[in-house]
């Protein structure tokens, strides 16, 4: 159960980080933190409930997260190269 609480704390830190941090890369790392918090939850629930589904799911999540990293880095890199900044505050062309 302690691990579940730890994962909840990690998830919250990640979510707060997404909302508070300004650098796109850091925001992105916080999202990864949230995904890994979910992984921790999966693994500890798998241990608690005694079936192995959760561990297998964690594998899948890791692969998906890796794919997400690649796509995300590519996008952030492109915008960084054309603007020399990766702050989300500078991305302000689209407004109502």
């Amino acid at each position, binding site marked *: 159960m302690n691990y579940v609480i730890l994962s909840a704390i990690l998830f919250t830190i990640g979510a707060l980080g997404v909302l508070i941090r300004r650098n796109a890369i850091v925001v992105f790392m916080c999202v990864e933190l*949230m995904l890994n918090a979910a992984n921790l*939850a*999966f693994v500890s629930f798998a241990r608690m409930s005694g079936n192995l589904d959760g561990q297998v799911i964690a594998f899948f999540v890791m692969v998906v997260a890796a794919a*997400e990293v690649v*796509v995300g880095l590519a*996008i*952030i890199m492109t915008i960084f190269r054309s603007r020399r900044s990766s702050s*989300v505050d500078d991305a302000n062309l689209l407004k109502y």
Partner: protein
Amino acid sequence: MNSVSVLAAPEIHAPPVEFSQLAPMLIVFGAAIVGVLAEAFVARPARYAVQFPLALVGLAAAFCWTLWLGFSEKPQHAAADGAVAVDGPTLFIQGTILVLAMLSLLLIAERAQDAFTAQAAALPGSEAEQESMADGGIQTEIFPLTLFAVGGMMLFPAANDLLTMFVGLEVMSLPLYLLCGLARRRRLLSQEAAVKYFLLGAFSSAFFLYGTALLYGYAGSVRLSAISAALSRSGGSETLLLAGVALLSVGLLFKIGAVPFHPWKPDVYQGAPTPITALMASCTVVAAVGAALRVFYVAFETLRWDWRPMMWGVAILTMMVGAIVAITQTDIKRMLAYSSIAHGGFLLTGIVATSESGLSATLFYLAAYGFTTVGAFAIVTMVRDTTGEAGHLGRWAGLGRRSPVIAGIFAFFLLAFAGIPLTSGFTGKFAVFQAAADGGAVPLVIVGVLSSAIAAFFYVRVIVVMFFSEPEPDAPSVVTTATTATAVALGLTATVVLGVLPQPMLDLAGQAATQLFVR
């Protein structure tokens, strides 16, 4: 999933995989992989000529197979060891997605409109960019990317467990993030849209995943039917359950674009290349609503007294905010984005009904709305001036005098969005509201009608601008090409037919719904 039994049992037998029932998805993914190979081995000038037919044939073949599955086999089956549900709603939604994807593909493949950048890696305004533009090519990777996205969209609403659903969600979203950033003109805007879409999308899928984790903790399985069974046993931790449902809903509602989670929609719809906006506004919404239907109807049905109030609130907010904020918009794509948010609210009304008629009404609404949307965005790609698409509403002034046919068709699409009788929008709204009223959600219906009235106001305003104001001297002209015209014509036909003669399609949706969801 089979490696679960790996450690428990000494022998592993092959899980049943019904390839014939999964074939539509496999065809699309297969075509995408062949497309990647074509990118690698076909010479640059020939790539377009290979990719476009390949993608179109792949989608068409998948659609034919879906039709065959629907009419001859009538499967009611959880395929691939229960990971993918192939049932009436799945086939209806997959068929809809495939047709809409083909229409969007016609827009994507349009070379004269040059919506896509020649080289995404080249810096905006750099010499490399000028060079690749002068070559006249486009980044042909858009075709495999589109196919991957469409494959993900087909898997997302068909998934029978939350892990498959998550994988489907990501396979659908990741290519879309990239496609958003590939506009040829206004590239900074497009890249910004991609970053926003990516960060918010990843954020929301993290919520979806954590919700899945909590539900796994509650039920000991991520299979939708197992969650439903665990609910009726009613043991376990309420906290885990409710938090899981809430987080999962956040992920799903984000993809639909329901109101507290909508701010990405106008930005992304405006910044993305218009053909991609058409794809997102039609297919992604269909897929996301399909997945939400399955989750709420199959897994959480016994819990509906708990989630209904929340969904009521979200639906009401979505309908009202979408309609009201749309009034102040000056960009045509932004306006259509807010209109799409409002439509998401109408669709949620159908989900809230949790009945067979609600299901069939939502399915019909999805098809009707999808066709109209693709048609409307197709026209947006046609109205152009020297800087590309004329996005600002003021630039559309007097379009009705310069090209009455196109303006007329666009007006018709807007009226369909508004839900005027004899258009598909009316039939869809009527069906959804009726189902909601039968389900006891009368206040929701009243808000819906009110929101439609507000929405009608700004649709009519656009029509007035087009027909009753003087065109500027340098007003944009309409560039018509064969593929775009085909997309518009098909969208128009569907909108008219579903409005005047809706019965066959309603029957089809009804049939799909009577099979209900497989568990």
